[in-house]
């Protein structure tokens, strides 16, 4: 029996998952997400892990493999690091074995990843270094509208006449939003419009990876945004898009990276142990 921790250091939040790996049986013991806000992400990652271990009566010494992902390459205490697409792919398969592609949408990035049934990355596309249409963008919009992140998803789904927007700057969006508000456009319609345009952008990435069928697993923090997921589901339903896929999410989607890291950590641990055995044997 092996215990592993996966730590996903993001730009918006730190996610930690604790697993017990037993052959091909994986048991998820604990999880925790912490928004970074204006804190030091690396310190936060370490603290969060320590807390989760403490809560479960464990110490770092009890852990066989501490795997980081995201921006965690330089964390001293890790056993190994895996890159986000590798871990999100694995996490997506864990959350939904039928996933054949992943849309990982986080605070600053969007990634479309085509995978096989084992979670191997076959092809990918990433958004550019512009935060327009990212999670941070949505967070800013919510602030300007005076609503909380958690309200976004539901509000968006109440829209009756979405106001279509095209790529606006995450920082300058404030003016546009204020302008829309002053034109008496309702928050649901504003949000839905933004979700549609974000969704289209993400679906374009997805198409570029040549995904044609199977489940699309939305991972990352924006999977919590049911409005965005709904907008994408409507997008793929449009026959114009000529894809035969289904958009899926999971309440634990935000942990996909941490899950993947923990599971790959377990896998590597066994490989390393085998190697060590080999060495001992020879």
């Amino acid at each position, binding site marked *: 029996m092996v215990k592993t921790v996966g730590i996903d250091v993001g730009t918006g939040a730190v996610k930690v998952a604790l697993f017990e790996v037993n052959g091909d049986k994986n048991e998820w013991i604990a999880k925790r997400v912490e928004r970074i806000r204006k804190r030091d992400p690396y310190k936060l990652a370490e603290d969060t892990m320590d807390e989760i271990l403490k809560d479960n009566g464990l110490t770092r010494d009890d852990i066989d493999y501490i795997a980081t992902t995201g921006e965690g390459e330089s964390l001293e205490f890790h056993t190994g690091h895996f890159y986000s697409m590798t871990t999100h792919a694995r996490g997506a398969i864990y959350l939904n074995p039928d996933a054949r592609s992943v849309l990982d949408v986080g605070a600053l990035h969007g990634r479309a990843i085509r995978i096989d049934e084992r979670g191997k990355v076959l092809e990918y596309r990433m958004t550019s270094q512009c935060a327009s249409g990212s999670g941070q963008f949505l967070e800013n919009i919510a602030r300007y509208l005076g609503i909380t992140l958690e309200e976004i998803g539901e509000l968006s789904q109440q829209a009756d006449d979405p106001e279509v927007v095209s790529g606006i700057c995450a920082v300058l969006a404030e*003016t546009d939003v204020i302008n829309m508000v002053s034109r008496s456009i309702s928050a649901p319609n504003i949000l839905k419009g933004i979700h549609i345009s974000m969704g289209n952008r993400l679906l374009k990435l997805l198409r570029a990876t040549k995904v044609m069928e199977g489940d699309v697993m939305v991972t990352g923090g924006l999977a919590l945004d049911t409005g965005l997921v709904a907008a994408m589901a409507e997008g793929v339903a449009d026959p114009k898009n000529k894809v035969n896929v289904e958009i899926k999410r999971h309440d634990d989607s935000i942990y996909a990276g941490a899950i993947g890291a923990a599971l790959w950590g377990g896998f590597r641990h066994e490989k390393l142990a085998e190697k060590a055995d080999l060495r001992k044997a020879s």
Partner: protein
Amino acid sequence: MKCYIGIDLGSTTTKAILMDDNMDVLGQGITNSRSNYDTAAAISKQEAMISTRFTLFHRAFEQISQLDGKVDDFLSGLERNFRLEQYLEQLKDLQDTSIGFADNPRFKDQKKAMVEALDATFAELEQAAVPMFAPGAERKSDFFRDIAGGQFMSTSERIAKEADLNYDVLLNVYDKAIIEVENRPPGGDLSGKFTRALDKLVTEAPEFNVGDAEISKPIQDALGVELEETFVVGTGYGRVRLPFPKDHIRSEILCHGLGAHMMYPETRTVLDIGGQDTKAIQVDGEGIVENFQMNDRCAAGCGRYLGYIADEMNMGVHELGPLASKATKVAKINSTCTVFAGAELRDRLALGEKREDVLAGLHRAIILRAMSIISRSGGVTDQFTFTGGVANNEAAVTELKKLIFENYGEVTINIDPDSIYTGALGGAAFALRAAEGDVTGAEEEQGAA
């Protein structure tokens, strides 16, 4: 009296200039553009009218012997008290509106506590207002939102804690209320406010109590002058959204070019870094635009870039420049995007880099982007004029001066404390020209390349 008004609807601030037949600037007004543009235009115009009244008062009082040598003190005293009146009026509005929002089924269990907390908060804010407008006092900003908002947050957070109330709910009603309040132009009744301000001033400084007639007559006379809006020209980012007829709209490029030329006739290159765009303009000896470049709608490289960074660091924009000037080395910023730069900033601070060094790097980044826009517009020709909000930032100015010198040699650099009004000034001049029947320069939306 015939008045010509130019209104520059900037992305962050809206500015108005009021000019008479002789091209003398009588008044200027500014407000932030967070509200809708109609309101912003109305407010800035109203502010320009108020400032015009002061100019007229000034002219009227010059003849009064009792105030000899004290005209300036008197008028600034009057203005302070006038501002206080305005502020209190808006504060009351904010209070009422916030309480109105607390009346939401979502808050039904907390409503009472919320109202109490709000009342307590606003009572403190009102208290705090008087010293803020005391002689010699400095205010954090000229805009209601900035002053009241900052105080509201700190005060209500404390009060909420004491009352064991969730602070987020107060913030939530405030966020909603401030948008409404900002969208309401302050009440008319200028004379009333002037009169009340005068009363207050006299109470606070009895030396100005020189007989009713001497003071109130010229004031009433000056207030009696009708300010006729002969021609109004709108320009700036928000101009197309305005109910201005097409022939009342001028491109912001042309207005900035002309405005800069009026301030400094020898100007050949103008750089304007505003809230949402950066423009470099080349003008000839007559103020005619020869070439220009603008950035597209990306916050990287304009005022909002620094504003966003200031938010990230929990600082005011005005504090950025002074801190950056303390840097001993300039960090190289890798991210172009503002949001990514914010994340980079966080990383770098986490890794132990000094705040001032990173800030200096961010300032350099914005100026480098401006340098590239200048270069695309045709470089720098003597004299060079720097306008827009960022020209108030000393670190940005230092960096710009350095780069201009390194790349274009010895060049006269003009920065006017009132440079934020450059576009409005050009607009007012166009208004005067238009009233005289000269329509050159009328133009639709300018394209950026």
